[in-house]
């Protein structure tokens, strides 16, 4: 039954990815004029000689004079074998530019999610059990701040404090000597010493949302008769809370990966830009500003796919935790 559900749900992800690929490609073709025109403009502005035959060859290769469907088909069949087209700004294949940045984005987003869970779960439980205590109010206030202050503003304020009061620069994911270095254990350790700052910045709003959800769910459960029964039977308070109400309150908590993950990806773009992280956000922005659409399209497509897979994982986890879902 569970396997059946997982297969059904996984199959559902494919039409979604197909739709996402159409969205991404529509964004590629959206700017006025095709890329080759923009490219030619950039060349002539910088005083280079525009080679008409080369432009014609580029048009031919991407089918730019063909209708949308054919252009899409050429693009997507390339994407499926790992060819995302050429970045005109960088003059090299898109595929070579994106994977390391996407990998770092992925690491950042997953660690943020784990961080948010690890922090929100105990705080949410505490807030619900000690309702209206000082700790609960402190958690609520932090929650509201996380809700109201945009990620990038937190990032800016932190950078300001770091520069003015501590004289250090908190941007980037690596120390300068590791930036161009190949991957090694030392580089990984260096990453760990930097990544916690964007994780905290990115995690605040997610933590805030999760605390609110956990608290509300647990409060609903705590007043139910089975809790009284368990208490009457002499269970210790700690075991009682963790074993029954928390387990039930966890269900909506698991489903939050579904909505939190797309939000994290969104938030990571802008936070990464402020902190100048070597992740996908800043390069995506740069590509969009330069109308380097194959590069931008690849990022948009892959970020959307991340997000859809995140939703899929969340649904499957939910089915594992809650048997009722599988039978719907």
């Amino acid at each position, binding site marked *: 039954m569970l396997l059946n559900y997982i297969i059904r749900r996984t199959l559902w992800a494919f039409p979604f990815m197909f739709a*996402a690929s159409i969205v991404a490609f529509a964004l590629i073709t959206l700017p006025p004029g095709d890329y080759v025109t923009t490219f030619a403009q950039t060349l002539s502005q910088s005083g280079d000689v525009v080679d008409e035959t080369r432009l014609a060859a580029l048009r031919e290769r991407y089918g730019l004079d063909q209708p949308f469907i054919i252009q899409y088909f050429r693009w997507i069949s390339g994407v499926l074998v790992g060819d995302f087209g050429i970045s005109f700004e960088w003059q090299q294949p898109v595929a070579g530019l994106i994977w390391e940045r996407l990998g770092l984005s992925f690491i950042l987003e997953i660690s943020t999610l784990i961080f948010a869970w690890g922090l929100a779960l105990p705080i949410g439980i505490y807030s619900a059990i000690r309702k209206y205590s000082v700790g609960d109010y402190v958690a609520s206030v932090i929650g*509201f701040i996380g809700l109201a202050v945009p990620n990038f503003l937190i990032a800016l*304020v932190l950078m300001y404090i770091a520069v003015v009061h501590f004289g250090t620069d908190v941007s980037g994911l690596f120390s300068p000597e590791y930036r161009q270095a190949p991957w090694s254990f030392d580089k990984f350790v260096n990453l760990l010493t930097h990544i916690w700052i964007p994780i905290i910045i990115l995690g605040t709003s997610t933590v805030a949302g999760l605390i609110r959800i956990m608290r509300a769910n647990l409060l609903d459960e705590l007043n139910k008769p089975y809790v009284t029964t368990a208490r009457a039977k002499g269970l210790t308070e700690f075991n009682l809370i963790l074993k029954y109400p928390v387990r039930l309150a966890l269900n909506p908590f698991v489903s939050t990966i579904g909505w939190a993950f797309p939000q994290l990806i969104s*938030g990571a773009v*802008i936070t990464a830009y402020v902190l100048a992280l070597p992740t996908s956000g800043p390069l995506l922005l740069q590509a969009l500003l330069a109308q380097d659409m194959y590069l931008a399209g690849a990022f948009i497509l892959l970020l959307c796919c991340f997000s859809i897979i995140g939703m899929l994982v969340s649904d499957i986890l939910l089915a594992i935790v809650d048997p009722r879902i599988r039978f719907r």
Partner: protein
Amino acid sequence: MATVADPRAAELTADAHASQLVLTWRAFRKHKLALFSAIVVLLFAIVGIFAEFLAPFDPNVTTSKDLYHPPQGIHLIDTAEDGSWSVRPFVYAMKVTRDPMTLQSSYAPDENRKIYLGFFAEGASYSMWGLIPSNRHFVTTVNPAERFYLFGTDRLGRDVLSRTIHGTRISMSIGLLGVTLSLIIGLILGGLSGYYGGTIDMVVQRLVELILSLPTIPIWLGLSAALPQDWPPLIRYFAITVILSLVGWTELARVVRGRFLALRTEDFVTAARLDGGSQLRVIFRHMMPSMFSHIIASVTLAIPAMIIAETALSFLGLGLMPPTISWGVLLKEAQNVRSIAQAPWLFIPGGAVCLAVLALNFLGDGLRDAADPYSNDGR
């Protein structure tokens, strides 16, 4: 006392006669925080509406001698040299000293020079809403040649206070306009999906799920990058609004659909239908009033999301662009560490964003709890 025809009538309290609006208001009034937030939101609205009058200066005027001028504090009591005093608001002028090596200016208050301020004084001329020409400002310098800066100035010597006030108009209105557009899309699609069910419901629900599963900022960025750079500011403003609502309608559609599904099987709706009411009459006369308060609450909660989205887009340089002034455009000035280290007051528009977003969220929470005055869950 006359015999009562219906024994239930004897138990009727004043509450039972109150209209839904009165009941909602009573429930809402109990939320002190929401009530306070409503006042804050109202103040933001007033600032946005009367921006030209409330701003002391023209937000786009640059002053080459006041670059990164720090904020000045207002003094109310003016003491003359002979010891007599009077109530007259003024600020101390700042003396500039320029570092000969770095050419960086540093400002220090000059206690000998006072710049007097006047309420409703005459200053730079403007035309209110593009209609009424005037030159009166709520507070400005008495001598039009002088300037004062409550919030400091930016890198071109423009008054941050005036700019924040004008930004309030654009940022708040883009939230309101964007949500209105989202509401129209959400009402149509959510209503169709909830009222008819079946295949339409299936399609709309899948569409909502698809949009919810996509990360919004990359999509927004992609869409706004496609806007031609040479569009006039007003067109760009509307285009950005449309882009924001193209993604933002899903939550409202969900609420509308949920309410339609819940109401469809209610007795009074069935009665109206069996009574021969047309479909439009059933929807607008009988169902709409019952979901109105829920929609208002969801709309209030959707506005802050729009404001943050606009701020984020403009901050990244793909949303609104100068000369349009929005909070996001202003925060773009605070983008690099060097300028905020030198001029931390550039964060002030960010404070406005946070305050507005927080107030709208509290207001929305209060409205949502008050939206259903018949429920007795003790909230």
